[in-house]
């Protein structure tokens, strides 16, 4: 089935989203923005512009540009643009058409169906007009839903039991407050209120006035008079507003803002959050009355409201959040981007209609904690990371830690700590019958498979003999929230010390490997090393072995480095000698077995292994 998209057809901007693999995704405009300016224009040459391009030319073409058409929806008013008259439905249809086109481009498929949102207070005429606009744009409008309902859907509030929701939608130009009741997935609007002349732009204006007045006090010049300087302080106001959402103070520095009597002047201001809040307080305060009105109309007290949802960019400001909390006596929800919230909710509704969201199937579990196995030195080596969607299967190849080891123990662990002992052991088993071999040679594949029911199957297979052992662990994904939280908290608390411990083990493990490989090298190259080099290596090896019996990590590290250096020095000598021998043709190359396992790139060495490889290579080259 083709996709149904959700559209938040807004007064100043519109947004669109769709559901992909159960998750809502915002659709970007052809201009690369996550929104579409709700602006339509006809140029002098009769060309139609919609969105960003129309917005950019709006002031040059006031007679040919239409903004805020949403306010005329459902009325009989006609719009005259460059001599032609249009209904509000037609203008809205142009915006929807642009969204349709860009969405098709974005998704790479034809889009014919949509869910469109409208304000809760829209009457039947306004809703019908919106539906008609969709039809004109070529959409089969599957449903018209209320903006606050969409916002609630974005928060999944339809899934909870019967409860009451307040949606506080403070946008660029309007404030809408809606009180709803939800029961059995059905939303009923109890009351709506708002202010069509209140928005974020009022805040920007107040800030611009503040900046301009401060500058005027100092330099006697009104920056608002010149469109050039006005634009710069307007941009600075928007930036400051955003910055003070996360910071307590910001500097507004606009160098060379203007010239007074041939003297360049700069705007330099410090703005604290407290000052910003003082400036916008009257605007925020105006939002209180509509909230109280809505509560009163719904015959509810603030305590009767179960959830408060924030919509609109202005709600990113802490002061606004505080105000809402003060009015409704509870912390509002704001996890979903307040600008995208309504479009996301519309997309979720669309997803339910198209079958892209099927509550029974698509909601897959995730692993609450990391699943790992214990490896050498008591380290927890992860196989399935925390937050991985299941069902899933992951495997890793391990080997033995000692020579001639015939059995390995698989200890299945759950938790975020790097050391096995600090995590919860879900179960353990042995894989026996591994053929005796030097350490590191056997290949044991350990796989973790979590099925859709959250049952973890752990299997260990010796790839050499084909022998296999497995264990079934139930309930690995079903942990209580408090248990998950506790384990995560513990991991966080011990992060530093755990890291050090793990490092310690790693240094020890590496030293261990180094000791083994050095022993082998000494054995293999015993005739190659000079007595002096051999002695140096043996001494360094002895030191490292001694260090390994103790617990001093720095000592182990230092001795490892010393041994590595001794080895490097010795091998350099060997290579230098070999190079010298090469320069004398006819010289014997030394014993063959010394090169076993280390085939040189040079074809002149007499190594049986190497020749075989060469033949194979040639063959594959010919093929």
């Amino acid at each position, binding site marked *: 089935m083709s996709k149904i998209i959700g559209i938040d057809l807004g007064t100043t901007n519109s947004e669109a989203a769709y559901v992909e693999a*159960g998750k809502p995704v915002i659709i970007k405009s052809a201009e690369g923005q996550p929104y579409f300016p709700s602006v339509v224009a006809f140029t002098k040459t009769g060309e139609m512009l919609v969105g960003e391009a129309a917005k950019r030319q709006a*002031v*040059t073409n006031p007679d040919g540009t239409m903004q805020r058409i949403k306010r005329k929806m459902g009325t009989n008013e006609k719009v005259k643009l460059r001599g032609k008259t249009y209904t509000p439905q037609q203008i809205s249809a142009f915006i929807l058409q642009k969204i349709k086109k860009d969405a098709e481009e974005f998704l790479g498929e034809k889009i014919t169906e949509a869910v469109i949102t409208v304000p809760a207070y829209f009457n039947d005429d306004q809703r019908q007009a919106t539906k008609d606009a969709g039809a004109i744009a070529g959409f089969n409008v599957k449903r018209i839903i209320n903006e606050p309902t969409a916002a609630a859907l974005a928060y999944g509030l339809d899934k909870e039991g019967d409860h009451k929701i307040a949606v506080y939608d403070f946008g660029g130009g309007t404030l809408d407050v809606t009180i709803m009741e939800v029961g059995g997935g059905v939303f009923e609007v109890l009351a709506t209120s708002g202010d069509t002349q209140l928005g974020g732009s009022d805040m920007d204006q107040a800030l611009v006035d503040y900046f301009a007045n401060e500058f005027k006090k100092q330099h006697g010049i009104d920056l608002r008079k010149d469109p050039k300087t006005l634009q710069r302080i307007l941009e600075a106001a928007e930036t400051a507003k955003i910055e003070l959402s996360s910071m307590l103070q910001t500097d507004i520095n606009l160098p060379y803002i203007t010239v007074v009597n041939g003297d360049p002047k700069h705007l330099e201001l410090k703005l604290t959050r407290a000052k910003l809040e003082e400036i916008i307080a009257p605007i925020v305060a105006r939002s209180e009355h509509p909230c109280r009105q809505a509560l009163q109309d719904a015959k509810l007290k603030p305590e009767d409201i179960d959830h408060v949802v924030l919509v609109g960019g202005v709600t990113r400001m802490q002061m606004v959040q505080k105000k809402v909390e003060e009015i409704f006596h509870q912390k509002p929800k704001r996890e979903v981007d307040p600008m995208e919230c309504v479009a996301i909710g519309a997309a979720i509704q669309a997803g339910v209609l198209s079958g892209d969201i099927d509550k029974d199937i698509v909601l897959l579990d995730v692993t609450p904690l990391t699943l790992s196995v214990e490896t050498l030195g008591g380290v927890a080596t992860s196989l399935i990371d925390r937050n991985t*969607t299941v069902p899933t299967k992951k495997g890793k190849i391990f080997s033995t830690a000692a020579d001639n080891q015939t059995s390995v123990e698989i200890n299945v662990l759950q938790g975020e700590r790097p050391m096995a002992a600090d995590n919860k052991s879900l179960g353990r088993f042995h894989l026996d019958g591994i053929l005796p071999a030097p350490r590191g040679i056997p290949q044991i594949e350990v796989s973790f498979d979590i099925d859709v029911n959250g049952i973890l199957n752990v299997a260990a297979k010796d790839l050499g003999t084909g022998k296999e052992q497995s264990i079934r662990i139930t309930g690995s994904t079903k942990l209580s929230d408090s248990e998950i939280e506790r384990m995560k908290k513990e991991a966080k608390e011990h992060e530093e010390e755990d890291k050090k411990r793990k490092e310690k083990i790693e240094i020890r493990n590496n030293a261990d490997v180094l000791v083994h490989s050095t022993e082998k090298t000494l054995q293999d190259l015993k005739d190659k090393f000079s007595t002096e080099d051999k002695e140096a290596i043996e001494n360094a090896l002895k030191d490292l072995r001694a260090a390994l019996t103790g617990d001093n990590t720095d000592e182990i590290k230092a001795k490892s480095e010393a041994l590595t250096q001794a080895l490097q020095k010795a091998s350099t000598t060997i290579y230098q000698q070999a190079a010298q021998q090469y320069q004398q043709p006819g010289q014997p190359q030394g014993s063959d077995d010394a090169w076993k396992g280390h085939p040189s790139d040079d074809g002149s060495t007499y190594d049986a292994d190497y020749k075989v490889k060469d033949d194979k290579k040639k063959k594959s080259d010919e093929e």
Partner: protein
Amino acid sequence: MPTKKNSEPKKPAQENLHQKIKKLEEELQKIQQEVTEKNDKYLRTLADYQNYQKRMEKERLNHEDELRKKYLSEFLDLQDLLKKASEDVNPQEGLKLIINNLDKFFEKEGVKYIECKGKPFDYLVHHAISTVEQDDCVEGTVVDEIKKGYMVGEKILRPSQVIVTKKKETTHGGVQNE
């Protein structure tokens, strides 16, 4: 409906039916198993996809960090140099070189200045901030640049912010031309 009548010898028709039921039951079982397998496969693919999405998101953030590092280090160099220039009694020469370096950096990154002054207004690359009425002018010409605009490759880095001419109007009627 076939019923069990053990006392009577089975009629061939009944025998046939039994066989048919058995065959259908087997088929049903096979299909049921197939559905279970397919469903499992579907769920695993979906989970894989969701895990892929998570990984991509992580990679995207990593990538973003790398990009930021690159640009931030350029800015840090610039900061060092500007600080030196601000301590210089005669910074003109130094500033010239700093600006030169910056120009080169942007050039290397494919950043191109958008011409605007004196050109006809172009909504594709210009953003009109305001208009200015003039008696004698070609309407829709950019007369002033508020903020420089740039392209990066074929894309707009940011449009020029401009002031555009408008013919002086004496009447309010008949402004809308066909």
